[in-house]
């Protein structure tokens, strides 16, 4: 942008959203949803949710089974028509510009949909061809991506012969073949062992460094904490909270949590003994959680009351606690 008064030059457009007075509609978001709704017949799977995803951000949907995460991801991915509200992806309307939008996004679906009749490398090549890459370019990217997800030595294997974690890695490689601006990951690491999860997190982190916008769903709060700049907590088709992992913890939980485990049968007999020990008390089937800013002090107070738990653990609050507070349920059931 050229201007006659260099000193008064406006901030570059990408910073415009932060200036006061810019109308909402002018803000640059990669995904923008207002009152977004999905119904299956009469059943409401996503109920009028609002959210924005900014370029370069990594954004998460955290929620239990059936919350509506996949339904939302499918609408963003242009494979599920919206029932109500407004949705724009990359500034375009999924109802009209599906092919254009899909050309610029990468999708890792919740269930692997690899082509069972093709080999590992062929899976990547044909996917590149679906995105109009030349055969040569598709081949080149296939080799790079196999390297990236450490599957080079399995290039000629059939998909069936891969382990679950390898399939997941191949699915992620496949989602990158068109060098997407936006990557949609629906539970990318569910079912993987810790080592495979860390490899994937590392790969996703690198993509984020390269400027790829990530949108992911997960049941795992450690994953959300690791990968998400910002997230929304979804429950029963609604968004119940929004913020960075830190903000959510600060807002909805205490600094520390005291976990008390009692011998079998004792938990049920506890009555008022716990009252007043902490800001908030959650009784889970196997343990009691006491939310307090000073966990050690709460533990001492419990001891003073004559409580003799089997184990005592003081830990920092996590997103799991936020979730419990917001929904009254554990994230992983």
């Amino acid at each position, binding site marked *: 942008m050229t201007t006659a008064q260099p000193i008064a030059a406006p901030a570059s457009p990408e910073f415009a959203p932060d200036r006061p007075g810019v109308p909402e509609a002018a803000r640059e978001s990669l995904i923008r949803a207002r009152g977004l709704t999905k119904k*299956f017949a009469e059943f409401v799977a996503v109920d009028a949710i609002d959210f924005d995803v900014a370029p370069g951000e990594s954004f998460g949907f955290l929620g239990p089974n059936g919350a509506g995460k996949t339904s939302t991801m499918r609408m963003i*991915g242009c*494979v*599920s*028509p919206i029932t109500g509200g407004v949705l724009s992806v990359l500034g375009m309307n999924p109802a009209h510009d*599906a*092919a*254009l939008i*899909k*050309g610029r996004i990468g*999708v890792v*679906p919740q*269930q692997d*949909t*690899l*082509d*069972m*009749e*093709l080999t590992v490398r*062929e899976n990547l*090549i*044909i*996917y590149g*061809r*679906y*995105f*109009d890459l030349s055969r040569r370019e598709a081949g080149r990217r296939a080799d790079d991506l196999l390297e990236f997800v450490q599957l080079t030595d399995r290039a000629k294997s059939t998909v069936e012969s891969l382990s679950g974690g390898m399939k997941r890695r191949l699915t992620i490689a*496949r989602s990158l073949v*068109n060098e997407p601006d936006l990557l949609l990951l629906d539970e990318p690491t569910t079912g993987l062992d810790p080592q495979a999860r860390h490899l994937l997190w590392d790969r996703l982190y690198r993509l984020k460094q390269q400027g790829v916008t990530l949108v992911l769903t997960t049941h795992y709060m450690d994953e959300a904490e690791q990968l998400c700049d910002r997230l929304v907590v979804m429950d029963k088709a609604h968004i119940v909270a929004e913020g960075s992992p830190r903000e959510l913890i600060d807002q909805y939980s205490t600094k520390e949590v005291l976990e008390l485990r009692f011998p079998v049968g004792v938990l049920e007999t506890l009555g008022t003994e716990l009252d007043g020990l902490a800001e908030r008390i959650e009784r889970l089937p196997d343990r009691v959680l006491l939310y307090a800013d000073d966990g050690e002090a709460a533990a001492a107070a419990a001891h003073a009351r004559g409580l003799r738990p089997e184990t005592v653990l003081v830990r920092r609050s996590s997103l799991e606690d936020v979730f419990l507070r917001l929904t009254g349920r554990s994230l992983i059931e």
Partner: protein
Amino acid sequence: MIATRMLPALGFAPRADRLVERNIMNYRRTWIVLVSGFFEPLFYLLGIGFGIGALVGNVTGPDGHAISYGAFVAPGLLASSAMNGAIYDSTFNIFFKLRYAKTYDAILSTPLGINDIAVGEITWALIRGTLYAIGFLAVMVVLGLVQSPWVILALPAAMLIGFAFAAVGMAATTWVRSWTDFDYIFVVTLPLFLFSSTFYPLSVYPEPLRTIVSITPLSRCIDLLRSLALGELSPVLLVDVAYLLVMGGVGLWVVSRRLDKLLLK
């Protein structure tokens, strides 16, 4: 691959050729499966055309001339195998990709759309059927079963048959819920194969049965191919062509509607 190169001109299925490419990639390794589709009608031709033909001797052709039974039955077998090949490809293979392998779900996350899938898969069935038809026609020539140069038109006619049955077969497959449901499809195709004048002329049927059989799709296909192979051109052939075009067009339309409903929920 001219047919698929021309598809972009159709506009509504601009990337259908990618589906064909995917199938070629698949069969490049398992081409032996394709070869069996060529031998099946050939075995019928040898067994029935020559075996039964030796018993039957000559038969009266549509124009009253005597022709060998082999020359009579060959176009019928070509039409039947074009039907069977198209049905086979558009039922079992499509069902596996649609319900089990989720191949189309993956494809729909790329710029390809429902119409690309529908047109691409039907085109592939068509290409496969065309290869078989070329092989079968070559055998007919070698065995001296060809009576007229018009037989050259039997090739596009066989392609049209492949298109019509692939489209209808794929449409039917979208309603199939399990492998046993395929029995319903074969309850339809087997009688078509046996009773549609493949092995004997329609004139064996009394009215009104003859009229009823004559409006079934395979009867129209056989009428078309037999007339071309024997050089008996008549305006009725245009009706046959129109019949098959409408059948394929309706099938394709149903496939698009159904896939949309099944895959884009």
